[in-house]
């Protein structure tokens, strides 16, 4: 009897400890990234920054400027080109939100990054005289490729 309850107690302690460790790991997610994981997070941040600038323009929160829009497209394409290299096999550590599917469905992941490359190239190559609705359509194309990839290959944010 004594023995069993001791054992149960020990198991509870172990479980609690494990819980703490997991919680601590979760809290550190994204902040403690190093190496190639950090590099790809920076690449995502750069692209996010360009998308933020474009979105503000499309929402009318900043003045529309076709030149600036194509430059934002170039920024995104510049990152999109090198994106695959930033996902070497085995780089799915605790700090990363990349799902294992990146590597188990590599062909599809490759196609998803190619879609981003193509959509951002179209935006980067837009005519200087393009109107807001033209740019909006190209922007939506880039957004669609962001979403498409995040849908399948990114873990949801921790609460």
């Amino acid at each position, binding site marked *: 009897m004594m023995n069993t309850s001791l054992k149960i107690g020990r198991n509870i302690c172990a479980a609690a400890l494990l819980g703490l460790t997991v919680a601590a790991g979760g809290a550190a997610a994204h902040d403690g990234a190093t190496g190639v994981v950090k590099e790809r997070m920076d690449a995502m941040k750069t692209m996010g920054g360009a998308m933020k600038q474009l979105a503000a323009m499309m929402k009318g929160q900043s003045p529309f400027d076709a030149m600036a829009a194509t430059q934002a497209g170039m920024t995104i394409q510049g990152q999109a080109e090198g994106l695959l290299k930033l996902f070497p096999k085995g780089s799915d550590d605790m700090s990363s939100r990349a799902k294992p599917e990146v590597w188990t469905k590599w062909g599809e992941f490759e196609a998803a990054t190619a879609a981003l490359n193509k959509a951002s190239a179209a935006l980067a190559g837009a005519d200087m005289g393009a109107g807001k609705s033209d740019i909006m359509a190209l*922007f939506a194309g880039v*957004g669609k490729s962001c*979403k498409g990839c995040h849908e399948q290959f990114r873990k949801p944010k921790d609460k």
Partner: protein
Amino acid sequence: MLMRFLMACGLCLALALVGVLGVAGFIPSLFWPDRGLGTDGYVPNPENGAYLFRVGGCASCHTAPGKGAKPLAGGRVLKTVFGNISVPNITPDREAGIGAWSAEDFLRAMRLGLSPSGRHYYPAFPYNSYTNMSRDDLLDIWTHLKTIAPVADKAPTVTLDFPFNIRAGLGLWKLLFLVEGEGKLARNQDEGAARGAYLVKGPGHCAECHTPRNALGGWKYSRWLSGSDGGPNPVPGIAPARGRGLKGWNASDISFALKTGMLPDGDSVGSEMATVVDKNLSKLTDEDAAAMAAYLLSARR
């Protein structure tokens, strides 16, 4: 003496509960009579039906995943905390789909969660949301559904584990949690927000994922649209007026995110929401997206 009296009371109460459960489960018509389900005076608006069908996302659930799946022929399996639930064929095929249904059958399904033969549907079919829709909007969707190509493939059925395989239990669930019918929505909302409330609570069925549920699977109304950890993935809150999610977003940030999936910080939505935007919300009119934003920003439930 007192003890015996209390015990007798308890027994009576238990028996009454079992009785209610039984009656609600086996004779649904007693609890959910056909009120206001007729089609009198209905003037079809097929365009409205096609639009609501699209933004409501019927096809997202009723079409199996993967390329080459036949639209609306069912076959998807929904993983819930209560077990796996299979999604049926809703094409107008008379055998495999719902081609043999009447308009009233459709209204009963959408409003009350009842099949034409009076069986309870699992609330994975979001009738708790659709019950908020107007009769004419529902009939417009019905009109649209009838124009879809029939598919004769019967969707496979998955059975839940005990006790959830006993559909009679759903009668009690509905007595507890189904708040039926239109018109209780949008109280004290201005016109734009009222339309938004209708879209969010009705066809959009946003609360199905964005409102947390209690142990029995009913919504926690006190935490309306506050986000949820209960499902397979955490779902963010979309109730900024109550400090639950969308912090610092303005109306155009919200309507823009609904239509494009792009968040104000330059990130995009992911997971299930990416499909919802892509297939459904991106088809919203600008006015409707703005109305949903107005409702989500208002403090009213």
